[in-house]
């Protein structure tokens, strides 16, 4: 299907979210839409999908002008959309979800699960989207959920697929698998619009790349364009993609000492197994590993959010395990949680309130039980300037901020008090290039101030760029501690559970 967009404009009050957008997607083309968070990519696609009414401009499908009142009409016309946040019923099976709205019936009015499963199996074989039609959504991984969403679109005979940030939630392996699927769909003649802000991915898969910045199309380029140029088009200024840092000067005494830490989860399974790690002041220890290998639980144990079943955790010699989060924070741990929406801030609270969320009770911001609103407001004004938080005012709710600015609020809060240990879990997940650069810089500054830093990330690039030492976790254990310059393939093997080549790492732990 050939998609032509001409002069499409959308305004929200005085704010122009999309300004005279032109875009053409040829049949059988993977077309990347590249732009920072808030550049207007989603607005554009929501107009295309009938979720928003354009103020000006036309959309043509195969030469015919169309205007959709709702997503139903867009689906009818052959447009399929896979949202960033999946819209599946967790307690239903894969087959039930795929056929939702197009239920397969045997006798009139009676559901035929058999037919539904057969249909899903046939579709999944045709496009190489491996799924188990009988599995419940709640039991499958995020990557498979995404395939279910794609199948849903295909069942509706979609000829043009819109994938909204499809890689944001995937592991590196799952991203590779998604690309294989996308190529297969392309070979089958489907057109794909691939929305992203990740430069490597567009180079890997797109035929053409349209860059959007502040609601305007900046340029449409070939994938041969260098990463640096793409980043510059996207952000509007030159950005450094590598992290520059001086060699670490770690302190002699470790700030954080973990020995034999074991965590048992709600199901009674050991998810962290006998982990012993030291982090010294002035160094960054990266924890690499595929998601779900115990990193999350290890960090929670450090924070006092879960009680380790065995082992000890000491900050500057003081035992903090089993004492709760308040004690961990008091001992000087700063925490940037991996799921900031969930654990990092309170969306309905103001920026100012969130900036003191874990130290409102300190003398600077309250006396007794009385909050010192003036100093809380003052603190907010300072942090907003220092961390360049883009917000209408300190009294805006954090919900109204973009993802990058929300992360800046968390970062500003955690870095604004004296720290001994900074724990940053997936600190740049879902952030755009400009914000990533900023976050990395701040983390390194904190290291250079003599703070011990622990980084947990599933992105090897990030681990390699920031860490002074890298601990690899697999199945709840630290399998090895290596130098960040270790070749990617070797790291990948360790992450997949291969035993380390030399026993030196194990002796170190």
């Amino acid at each position, binding site marked *: 299907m050939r998609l032509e967009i001409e002069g499409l404009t959308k305004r929200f009050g005085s704010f122009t979210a999309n300004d005279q957008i032109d875009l053409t997607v040829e049949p059988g083309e993977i077309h990347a839409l590249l732009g920072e968070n808030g550049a207007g990519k989603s607005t554009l696609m929501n107009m295309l999908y009938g*979720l928003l009414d354009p103020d000006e401009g036309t959309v043509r499908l195969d030469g015919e002008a169309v205007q959709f009142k709702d997503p139903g009409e867009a689906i009818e016309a052959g447009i399929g959309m896979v949202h960033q946040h999946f819209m599946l019923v967790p307690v239903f099976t894969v087959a039930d979800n795929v056929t939702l709205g197009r239920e397969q019936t045997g006798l009139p009015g009676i559901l035929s699960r058999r037919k539904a499963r057969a249909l899903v199996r046939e579709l999944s074989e045709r496009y190489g989207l491996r799924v188990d039609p009988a599995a419940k959504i709640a039991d499958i991984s995020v990557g498979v959920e995404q395939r279910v969403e794609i199948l849903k679109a295909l069942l509706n005979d979609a000829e043009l697929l819109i994938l909204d940030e499809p890689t944001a939630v995937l592991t590196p392996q799952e991203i590779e698998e998604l690309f294989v699927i996308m190529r297969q769909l392309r070979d089958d003649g489907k057109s794909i619009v691939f929305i992203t802000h990740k430069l490597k991915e567009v180079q890997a898969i797109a035929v053409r790349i349209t860059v959007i910045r502040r609601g305007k199309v900046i340029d449409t380029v070939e994938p041969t364009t260098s990463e640096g140029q793409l980043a510059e088009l996207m952000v509007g200024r030159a950005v450094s993609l590598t992290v520059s840092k001086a060699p670490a000067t770690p302190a002699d005494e470790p700030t954080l000492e973990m020995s034999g830490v074991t965590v048992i989860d709600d199901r009674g399974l050991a998810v962290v197994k006998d982990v012993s790690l030291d982090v010294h002041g002035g160094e960054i220890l990266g924890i690499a590993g595929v998601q779900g290998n115990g990193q999350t639980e290890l960090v929670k144990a450090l924070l006092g*959010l879960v009680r380790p079943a065995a082992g000890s955790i000491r900050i500057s010699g003081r035992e903090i395990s089993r004492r709760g989060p308040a004690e961990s924070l008091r001992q000087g741990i700063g925490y940037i949680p991996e799921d900031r929406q969930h654990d990092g801030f309170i969306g309905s609270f103001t920026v100012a309130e969130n900036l003191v*969320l874990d130290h409102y009770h300190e003398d600077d911001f309250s006396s007794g*039980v009385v909050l010192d609103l003036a100093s809380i407001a003052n603190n907010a*004004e300072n942090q907003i300037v220092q961390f360049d938080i883009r917000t*209408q005012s300190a009294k805006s709710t954090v919900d109204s901020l973009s993802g990058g600015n929300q992360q800046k609020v968390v970062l500003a809060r955690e870095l604004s008090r004296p720290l001994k240990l900074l724990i940053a879990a997936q600190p740049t997940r879902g952030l755009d290039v400009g914000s990533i650069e900023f976050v990395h810089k701040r983390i390194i500054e904190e290291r250079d101030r003599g703070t011990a830093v622990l980084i947990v990330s599933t992105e090897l690039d990030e681990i390699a760029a920031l860490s002074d030492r890298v601990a690899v976790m697999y199945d709840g254990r630290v399998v090895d501690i290596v130098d960040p310059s270790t070749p990617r393939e070797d790291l990948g093997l360790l992450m997949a559970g291969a035993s380390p080549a030399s026993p030196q790492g194990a002796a170190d732990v």
Partner: protein
Amino acid sequence: MSDQAPSTQQQEPGEDRETSGVAATVQSWLPTVRITLLSILLALMVGAVLIIVSDDEVLSKFSYFFTDPMDGLSAAVEVVADTYWALLEGAFGSAGAIQSTLERAAPLTCAGLGVTLAFRVGLFNIGANGQMIMGAIAAAYVGFTWDLPPGIHLIVAVIAGMIAGAIWGGVVGLLKAQTGAHEVIVTIMLNYVALQILRWLLTLEAFQVPGSNDPKSPVVDADAQYPDLLGVHSGVFVALLAAVGVWWLLSRSTVGFEMRAVGANPDAARTAGISISKAYILAMVIAGMLAGLAGTEQVNGHEDPLTDGIAGELGFDAITVALLGRATASGTVLAAILFGAMSSGGREMQAATGTPLDLTLVLQALIVLFVAAPALVRSVFRVQDRAAGGADLAKGWS
């Protein structure tokens, strides 16, 4: 926008920011206030239809509507106007009416504040009725048995009522925090328990009027009653003070900050080192205390004895009041006054125009129903709420 904030601050350090803050607050509340007012208007319109169809005289004039439509219509307008006028007069038309309105609003305010506070920490406190009953029992017992100097007697009785309510609410918080027991179930059950305790106590001689077998206590001593002040009993002012206290607690204190944080996002609150258990327990203790205070308004405010109808439906109306007041202290006060006015004006209306008192209950129910369905109100009045509409969209799809 972000560039402007710091520069304004430099020019005019204090005042400018303050006023823009107030303006922003007013701005942010405007849609809510508008929806509430329109809901009241819509409820009155539906109520008008009910008034017309329940009036036999008007209906008889409608029987010859097609020969003389004006006769029926003017009669209809007249009866609606009369009825609402009587309602308004009965609520605010005289010193006595205002007194009745405010004294009815006072217990609703206190109990409503208890529900509001629990809402803010994320708990649905259905138990205001039970907490009120316990408060009333304690306050009444102290009021009619103990012999204390004037003034002190009232204070001790009120404190006893608040403590009893606090215990009854605190149990809920404790069970929730320690065992995860759902507060809705626990509060509903404790309502029954409280009512049965009251009924049992009223069978005991210690709680009955000497020489009588009625399930009815003596009236509390005169020196344990809220003294009159500016034409109303001073419990009204106690209720207002309680509202100021709740407002202060929620917006100005660290404890309130913790409660709001737990209510808005318990995971983030826990990660920030806030104790969820402490917030739950404390909020329910204070909520119970406020409901207990409402109980004292009942027994120490009027010269009414303690009976098993002492709390009536007030504890449940309190939930409605808190919802209508959008779980804010000031909103709760306004909603309680509205309900007090309906209840006080309703009697006058029934006496003057013969419209049944039930109309006010229908009106109350309709107001809350419309507030809960803002899209309906917007479509009836063709209000475009751009801000609210946009927010919904962003939540759903971005």
